[in-house]
Every structure is written in structure tokens, then in C-alpha cells.
């Protein structure tokens, strides 16, 4: 069995994994990082499993664990430090989540998105969210929170 060496949320791991093990299952079941969710069968459309691979948002259900060898991964559990990030805080404040199942994936995608585009328009935010399905919120409060977080991260009131 191959051995993968990778960093997840700042911790180094060295683990034997079967070749076919999906990265999302490795994270959820081997490392008990269950904040990364699974919402598709094979299609990789819902985005609930989004993580950062070397800082970029990717879907962990469309990768094998062996492919993550040598990489740095951040999951929702590693997004916040001692306090919530401005994006997480904005999600709370604007009631941007209901059941919360899609939320980790959205936070991981949008935190990467805001790094790339610190001053997005509403249209850009909505297009940036295409890879994350949310069934509860109608996206209205999500868009609002991303906009507000962007403003705060740019240092505006």
C-alpha cells in the first residue's frame, strides 16, 4: 500500500492508504475531520467537500488520497485560528447558513475566492459560488456575507 505524507491543517501525517481511497474519505474517516461533507455520488457537483489544496479551492471527492501526497491541505477545521475568520464571522452575522451541510465547502471556496478577488461585485460572487449548491438559503444571505467579509478584509468599516 502506498504511503502518503502530507500536511493537513498544519499537522504532518504519514499514512498508508489504498490506491483507490478518495481524499474526502481519508480526511473524514482516517483523520476524523468530518467537517468536509459528501453530497454527490460520483459527479462532484455539490461542492460540499471543497478544501484547500496548496491554498486553492478544490473538490476532495474528485481526488484520491494518494494524489495529495506531498501537498498541504486545509479543511474547514483549519480555517479559523483562535478566532473566526472575517468570512466565518460574517456568515454567522448575516445568517448565511441553515442546515450547514454545504457551509464548509462554501467557506473554503469563498475564502480562496476573496484571496483572488478582494473586491468582488455581487455578480462575481454569485458566479464564484456556482460550484457550491445550497438548498436552504436561496443564497441571498451568503452573497451578503461574502460582500461584507470582503469589505472587512479590505479594512473598510
Amino acid at each position: 500500500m502506498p504511503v502518503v505524507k502530507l500536511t493537513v491543517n498544519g499537522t504532518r501525517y504519514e499514512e498508508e492508504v489504498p490506491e483507490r481511497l478518495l481524499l474526502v474519505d481519508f480526511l473524514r474517516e482516517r483523520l476524523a475531520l468530518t467537517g468536509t461533507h459528501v453530497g454527490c455520488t460520483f459527479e462532484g457537483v455539490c461542492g460540499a467537500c471543497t478544501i484547500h489544496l496548496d491554498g486553492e479551492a478544490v473538490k476532495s471527492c474528485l481526488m484520491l488520497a494518494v494524489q495529495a501526497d506531498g501537498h498541504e491541505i486545509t479543511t474547514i477545521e483549519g480555517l479559523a485560528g483562535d478566532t473566526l475568520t472575517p468570512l466565518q464571522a460574517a456568515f454567522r452575522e448575516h445568517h448565511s447558513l441553515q442546515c450547514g451541510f454545504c457551509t464548509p465547502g462554501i467557506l473554503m471556496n469563498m475564502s480562496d475566492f476573496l484571496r483572488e478577488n478582494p473586491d468582488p461585485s455581487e455578480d462575481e460572487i454569485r458566479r464564484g459560488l456556482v460550484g457550491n449548491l445550497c438548498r436552504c438559503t436561496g443564497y441571498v444571505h451568503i452573497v451578503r456575507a461574502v460582500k461584507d467579509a470582503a469589505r472587512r478584509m479590505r479594512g473598510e468599516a
Partner: protein
Amino acid sequence: MFPARIEHYARPRTVAEALAALSRCEPGEAIFLAGGQSAMQAIKSRMLRPQALVDLQAVAELKGITLTGGALTIGAMTRYADIARDARLGGAFGALTDAASHVGDRQVRNRGTIGGSVCWNYVAACTPTAVLATGGRMNLGATSGATRSLAADDFLLGPLETARQDDELLLSVSWDAPAARTGSAYAKWGLVTDALPVIGVGVSVTQDASGKCVQARVALAGLAGGAQRGPAAEVLLMGSAGDAATIDAAFAALAAEADTHSDLSADADYRRQLIQSLGREVAQRAFDRARA
């Protein structure tokens, strides 16, 4: 769903290592894994059951966008996100950025590659169509050490089918330096934003100094036969001034002739309508870019 058993995983660092890894496997036993945004769907659904995976993620020489004297080479492992954000790729290569900017979603664009997409050649896909419209060439290397280069027209054979042999690796997609006053564009229509194209249209045109169209390539996505050229529109665009009336006529002709089908997303007649309305918009944009 979870992948069926996979026996071997290899992560070569060079093209030579990649081809060597492939040649160590029985024919048909191994597949190359590029960005995996389509292949992993197929592996998870068990439509594909590879014994071995040769993961190309670490092959640096397959990555990157090079512009030399106007000629463009995009490494097979270059991601949509990298193509979409490359400011140099306007004008003649506008169709490539148009397509790459709207494939799937952000997460997919952060992983998916141009090479993976053209080699997968899904029945309804943006990248093969944009590459076909812009006249890209596929540069392949074989385990024997041989290399060859195929025009997109000869490479893209049909849905999920290409001219790539099992012992070949796609190295890059390249374009000759475009003639002056060349522009290209691509757009698609899907039921939801950035979905797979129900219809996609790519157009590349070149005008001479007088504004006459001297080169026109039109390609379609979303037909049952996969990415394909639209000669009925091309012949009408050629020689024209790229005026609205000619563009209308060109895509009306293409729509009338196209072998459209009905499925869950749209009926055959509506696909014709989309060819016409999208074609109009895309050709206009291509001419605008040629003139810019």
C-alpha cells in the same frame, strides 16, 4: 460511489518517466490522470476501472503557457484557471479564455486541464470545441520515443474518442502565430450557469486590411456527434465583411444543417435556435476582437 480496486499508482516527474510508467503496464491497463475532473467521475462511477493510474500532476514540463513570436503552446497539464487568467490570451485566442473561464466552476477550474479535456473529449464540452475553432494542434509523445502532431480536426474523432493511441501522451496543444486581425470567441448555453453546454459555439476569423474575412473556423459543442466544425457557416463568413447580415445568414445556414438532437436539456429545434442566437453573438465578438 467509490472507485473499483486500483493496483498501481505512479507519479512521474518527467515526460520520459510518465511514458516509462505507462510502458510498464499491460496495454489498456493504465490511464493517465490529468486534473481528474472528468476521469475521477468515471472512476468513481466505475465506468472506468483502471488497474493503474499514472498521475501527471508533477510533470512540470507539461505545464505552462508559452507565447513565442505570436505562436502559442499550452502544456497539456495547464489548468483552466491558468488559461482563464492569462491576460496575454485575448484576440486570436479569445475563444480559449472564454471557454476556460466558464468550465464547471471555480473548484473544477483549479484542477481541470486543457489536455485532460481534449483527451477525454466529452460529448458536450467547451475546451475541445474552442480548440477546434481556433485550429489548435495536439502534440503527442509515444512510449517508443516517437512524437507526432495532429490538427484538432484529426484528433477529435467523436464523443470520448480521440486519435491518441494507448501508448501516447498528449504533451501540449499549440497554435501557429495567428495572422494579423484574427479574433476568436466562444460561448455556450446551459440550463444553469456554467453547466455543460447544451450548445456551445466557437468562432475564429481573420480579416484582411480591407476588412474582408479571409479565414473562418466555426465549431459546435452539444451535438450528439461531439465537437465538430460548422462548414455551412464558415463558407458564408469567408469573403464577407463580417457584417451582421452575413453573420445571421451564416448561422441560420448552420442551424438548418446541424444534426441536432432532443434530450433532457433541450429539444432538437431549440438547439438549432441556440446555434443561431449564440453563433450570432460569438461571431460578432470574434470579429470585434479581429478588428481590435
